[in-house]
């Protein structure tokens, strides 16, 4: 039994490792092709990671990536592709900012309420795609992509001056949120910066994700639906309800993913609020194999690429384009998809062979012992 567990760990690690090595090699090929050193950029980026202020940036960024990736992973576990995390978190962050700016309750009420607003907004936006899928059979991929675009326009409208917007210089914002809704972080000094308080929420969500999926009936139904829709249906899973529930949960988690920054640092939603978290989340969920620990590593890795790459522009004597990191992220996605499928099939075959061998060995051993008994009886 132990052997199979080790086998599973090996298989789980083999995919990402192969993918990363392949991505690094391919990036080096790109560097060589453009006449640059194929190694130095990595060294420069590694150097960056040693600075504690960069580390703080990485952790903060990773906490947001982590939530976005969890949202995507929930969908992935039942073969739903929620591409709409991007629209869901932006709309949720904006709504949270608006509520936070207009409502002033004591902190112990204000903060949970703001988190709830974020989750409900995200769930609502994802829920539209869910309802469309279960009632009209609209592919959630198409619906969520459309909803991303609609969210952008909607946010543009809602942040107009005569709706909820407040103009600050050239920037449209939603006004500064009341301080009771600010979440304090861990201050590591002026040189280093502050770790967002909601980093802990990310960790907690990761734990919750694991428990719900692996230890509850609901999680089992969800995983069964993802593995085999037909078998899940025959086992009594109501597919439509499952799709809707999964979309709602995915949207709710997506709704949280912009909040570490909003509640911990900027305290307003503005044109400069980061976009694209949702798409990066897809990469991270893929790379992390929908596993909460894997996603954590993947989120840290991508956050590292993000935060360490700007230094490439200022490198002396030779500057490198920081887009190298972007190229690498793209290559990681490719490599991940290919290597995971290859490793999965290889693992399945390997196990089948192994089971066959073990059974044959067991049968042979039984025959031998029977023969021995016969001999002994004589």
């Amino acid at each position, binding site marked *: *039994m132990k052997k*199979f*567990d080790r086998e599973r760990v090996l298989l789980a690690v083999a995919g990402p490792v192969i993918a990363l090595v392949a991505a690094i090699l391919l990036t080096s090929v790109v560097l060589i092709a453009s006449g640059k050193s194929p190694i130095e950029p990595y060294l420069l980026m590694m150097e960056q990671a040693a600075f504690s202020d960069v580390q703080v940036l990485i952790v903060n960024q990773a906490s947001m990536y982590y939530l976005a990736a969890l949202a995507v992973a929930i969908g992935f576990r039942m073969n739903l592709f929620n591409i709409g995390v991007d629209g869901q978190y932006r709309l949720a962050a904006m709504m949270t900012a608006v509520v936070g700016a207009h409502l002033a309750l004591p902190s112990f009420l204000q903060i949970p309420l703001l988190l709830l607003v974020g989750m409900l907004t995200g769930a609502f936006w994802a829920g539209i795609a869910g309802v469309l899928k279960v009632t009209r059979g609209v592919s959630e991929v198409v619906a969520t992509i459309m909803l991303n675009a609609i969210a952008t326009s909607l946010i543009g409208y809602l942040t107009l001056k005569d709706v909820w917007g407040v103009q600050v210089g050239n920037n449209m914002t939603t006004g500064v949120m009341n301080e009771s809704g600010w979440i304090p972080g861990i201050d590591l000094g002026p040189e280093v910066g502050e770790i967002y308080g909601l980093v802990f929420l990310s960790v907690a969500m990761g734990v919750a994700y694991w428990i719900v999926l*692996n*230890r*509850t*009936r*609901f*999680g*089992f*139904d969800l*995983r*069964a639906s993802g*593995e*085999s829709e*037909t*078998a899940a*249906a*025959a*086992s*009594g*899973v*109501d597919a439509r309800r499952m799709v809707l529930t999964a979309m709602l949960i995915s949207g709710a988690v997506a709704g949280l993913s912009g909040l570490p920054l909003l509640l911990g640092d900027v305290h307003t939603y503005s044109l400069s609020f980061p976009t694209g978290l949702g798409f990066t989340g897809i990469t991270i969920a893929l790379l992390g194999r929908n596993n909460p620990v894997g996603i954590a590593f993947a989120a840290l890795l991508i956050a590292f690429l993000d935060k360490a790459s700007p230094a490439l522009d200022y490198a002396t004597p030779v500057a490198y384009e920081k887009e190298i990191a972007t190229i690498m992220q793209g290559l990681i996605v490719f490599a991940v998809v290919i290597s995971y499928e290859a490793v999965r099939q290889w693992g*399945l*075959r390997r*196990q*089948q*062979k*192994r*089971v*066959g061998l*073990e*059974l044959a060995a*067991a049968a042979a051993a039984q025959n031998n012992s029977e023969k021995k008994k016969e001999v002994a009886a004589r």
Partner: protein
Amino acid sequence: MELTGITKRFPGVVANHDIHLVVRKGTVHALVGENGAGKSTLMKILYGMQKPDEGTIAVDGEQVTFHSPADAIARGIGMVHQHFMLADNLTVLENVVLGSEKLHGIGAAARRRIEEISDRYGLGVRPDALVESLGVADRQRVEILKVLYRGARTLILDEPTAVLVPQEVDALFDNLRELKAEGLSVIFISHKLGEVLSVADEITVIRRGTTVGTAVPAETTPRQLAEMMVGSELPTPETAESTVTDRPVLTVDKLRLEAEGGRAVLDDISFTIHAGEVLGLAGVEGNGQTELIETLIGLRAADSGTITLEGQDITAWPTRRRRESGIGYIPEDRHRHGLLLESPLWENRILGHVTERPNAKGFWLDLKGAQEDTRRIVREYDVRTPGIDVTAASLSGGNQQKLIVGREMSHKPKFLIAAHPTRGVDVGAQAAIWDHIREARREGLAVLLISADLDELIGLSDTLRVIYNGRLVADADPAAVTPEELGSAMTGAASGHLEHTENTEEEAGPEDEAR
């Protein structure tokens, strides 16, 4: 064309084993066997979609190796798939030239060629008709034409009659005879014995992945063919004494299920299964069995009629509630409906019973309980596996089935749907599964048994019904009926109460509303 010693292994199973097949020029050669006997795999090998692990293929005496369907086409082998591969929004002409534009272009030359083929073999295809406007039979003719257009001398037809009504079947057979007369060879895959006997010149029977014999229609009867298909040396599934009680467990009344468009797939289905009774349902596949099972388990909603389980009307219940209230389910396709192939055995033990003990305590899964119970099932049902953490996919078909049977029996079902419980299972496991069903029956289980294996049906059932075209057309006493008599009812030739000897009405007296 000649195949010698073809063997194809998939992980965990041997799909084809030592296949021998000789198809002579200008003949229709039928390949018959139960579903899962390995026909489709063999055809994929012939058509270059899969490579055999052992054995050789020879065309016109010359040994060949196919790497892809393109190689097969180049050798004059064409395939008409069961599911048509046509683009609806293109015309017949466009569909035919699609992918082989090099042959005769896409214009007038191609049209001439199509018309020429159509006339020569009496296909009656109109090159400018839109495919979406064509009926099923016409589409099939387009598929055949497509294959001929590419220069095929040997046509493989995979279950071509499955989608056709009888008149269309006759028309298809006329086409096949034309082809034959022109010196082409046809390989005709089917499990409908009547059709095979009427159209084929030679029949090869395939069972459990290997060819068991060749027959000539003139010298053979459906009974003999059926015996070859099922294998008469199988252990007989006899039930010793009757355990039928008069307590009805499952009652189905005037059940009707419609396909899209209002055609009845199931019509006026009524039967009662009592505690301790095995009701065997005989029928050629595709006559409504699958739909009946799915309606009983709740995957489809009946359009009218009621299903009653122990006095409770469960017609509107969802699947989960039905399973919780004691319906066990051995699905006909275990890979699609019975297992999570890439999950460990103990998770598969939870599947279908996630809300019940020992798998769950309230909202939470009980992993320990489930794993413990999986070990018990592995022990008691003799599932051959090195452990419960291996994936279901790594077990052989028979062991997968034993796991499913063990799982379903572990929840003390009141009513068991057993669809082909021993299909694809080796002889030893088969006997064990029969034993388990018999034992549960003694304890008052009601069983609906659906099987293509007539000996299994007759041997295991207390009551027999025959389904044909979505209706229960006949009933029989398993003690008195022969497979031949059942067979004739399965093709719709006989109906009502099937009598072997002088009348004995006691078995199917009161609830005999099936005709």
